[in-house]
């Protein structure tokens, strides 16, 4: 688990490029941009409050993303840092937990607490962290394979548990890190992987509908190519008391280049966020998977705000039973 560094706005801008010498691709000579007289005048502190992109910088770590240029995950990273800045969450009060995959690299690129965990196990890790440290804003991030396949069972139970977590799934309908295999959200006839040359033939996982059926209290869908809207959704999700699931359509440039068309296919959700299950179920039936916005939001009791401290009464009960427990232990451990 890495910890946020204590950095000012100025310190958040690393020297660029890095000092490590790197090979020149194509041996291109660099054109020289026009020189301008730099001004010493920087935004005053009160102006900084008016510049989201500047305030977002303090949430970025100095680690350079290895995502492919053109990857949707860059949009999610930008939206998340702007959201944290907008909500004025101190970096030391935020933790981002992930599993494995391209999108699960997210914690490394943020200057908040981070935990890059096991494949599919981001949600139980986050649940443990939130139970032990309820004062933290805990955000879980991952991809469609990590969240809906390897971690599918955790997803269901996190939805119904309604612990105060925000779960961002960057869905590109493919396992990108392992070079492009079909994931739970891949179309059944997608046949560009050697593992599934005829397509999977399996119906797609429907994240929003399944989250609703499993009992999630906040369900939204965003698009990496619509950063302003995504920032708004993330802010609403983090502020929602309970489990907030944000399904982000995040195109994979390398293995699913056809997803570039998502820009033309996404559209705002026609209806207002559903407040009750019947209304939400009707909305889900009409959902084409490309509707953006808050799909469902309901206030229901939040799972234990933390692990309750052991009371005196509980301690007395434990002491009273200690003899019996010792007898059982002695019997079973003979």
């Amino acid at each position, binding site marked *: 688990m890495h910890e946020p560094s204590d950095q000012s706005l100025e310190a958040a801008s690393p020297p660029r*490029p890095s000092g490590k010498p*790197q090979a020149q*691709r194509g041996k*291109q000579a660099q054109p020289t941009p*026009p020189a301008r007289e730099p*001004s010493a005048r920087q935004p005053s502190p009160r102006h900084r409050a008016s510049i989201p*992109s500047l305030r977002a910088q303090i949430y970025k770590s100095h680690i350079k993303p290895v995502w492919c*240029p*053109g990857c949707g995950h860059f949009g999610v990273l930008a939206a998340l840092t702007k959201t944290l800045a907008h909500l004025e969450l101190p970096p030391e009060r935020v933790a981002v937990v992930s599993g494995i995959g391209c999108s699960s690299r997210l914690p490394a690129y943020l200057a908040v607490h981070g935990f890059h965990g096991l494949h599919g196990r981001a949600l139980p890790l986050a649940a443990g962290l939130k139970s032990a440290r309820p004062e933290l804003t805990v955000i879980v991030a991952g991809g469609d394979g990590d969240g809906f396949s390897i971690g599918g069972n955790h997803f269901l139970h996190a939805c119904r548990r309604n612990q105060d977590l925000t779960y961002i799934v960057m869905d590109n309908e493919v396992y990108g890190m392992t070079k492009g295999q079909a994931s739970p959200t891949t179309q059944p006839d997608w046949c560009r992987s050697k593992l599934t040359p005829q397509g999977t033939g399996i119906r797609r996982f429907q994240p929003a509908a399944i989250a609703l059926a499993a009992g999630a209290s906040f369900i939204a869908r965003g698009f990496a190519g619509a950063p*302003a809207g995504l920032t708004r959704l993330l802010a609403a999700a983090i502020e929602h008391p309970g489990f907030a699931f944000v399904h982000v359509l995040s195109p994979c440039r390398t293995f699913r280049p056809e997803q570039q068309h998502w820009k033309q296919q996404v559209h705002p959700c026609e209806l207002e966020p559903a407040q009750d299950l019947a209304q939400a179920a009707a909305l889900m039936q009409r959902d084409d998977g490309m509707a953006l916005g808050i799909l469902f939001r309901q206030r229901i009791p939040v799972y234990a705000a933390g692990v309750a401290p052991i009371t005196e009464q509980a301690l007395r009960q434990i002491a009273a039973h200690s003899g019996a427990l010792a007898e059982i232990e002695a019997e079973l451990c003979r």
Partner: protein
Amino acid sequence: MSAPSPDAVIESVAELLAHALELEYASKAHYEQLADSMNVHHNTAVADLFCSFATLSADHAAAVAARAGDTDLPRIPPWGFKWLCPDAPEGGDCLDPALSYGMSTVQALEVALHNERRSRAYYAHCAASAALPEARRLAADMAAEAAEHIALLEQMLADERRRHRDTPDDLDPPHVPA
């Protein structure tokens, strides 16, 4: 928390300045991210170019800050800016099809030119639609500055195209079955 309507207009000079500062800092962040990305993929020529653009954006931001002086600027949520495009005009589009780890300096200049043209279009729109004459004048000045940048970038692009007729080969293409 509602987003501005598409026909929302800039109401004041302070609001225009807030938009201009966000535009420049979004531009700086975008070019820094692209420079990082190119460095990671060992495309240092393009990385250096994006790095230079980031520095220029920082300079432009400083110039706007100097213009703002002690003006009180409105605090606008990230989704509340009145852009004509989904994000700040020079903030770039993370899904821009031109972006590639093997992109050339010509393509990088094309990306910058596209962003600068969006910036000019935005300021021209504000110059025509802002509520106050003072804000319209300032927007027109900014549009004129953006036009100068466009002219410079067009010249650089023409020079670069003359120097590099061909796009470099992708030396490490991803393995994607046909």
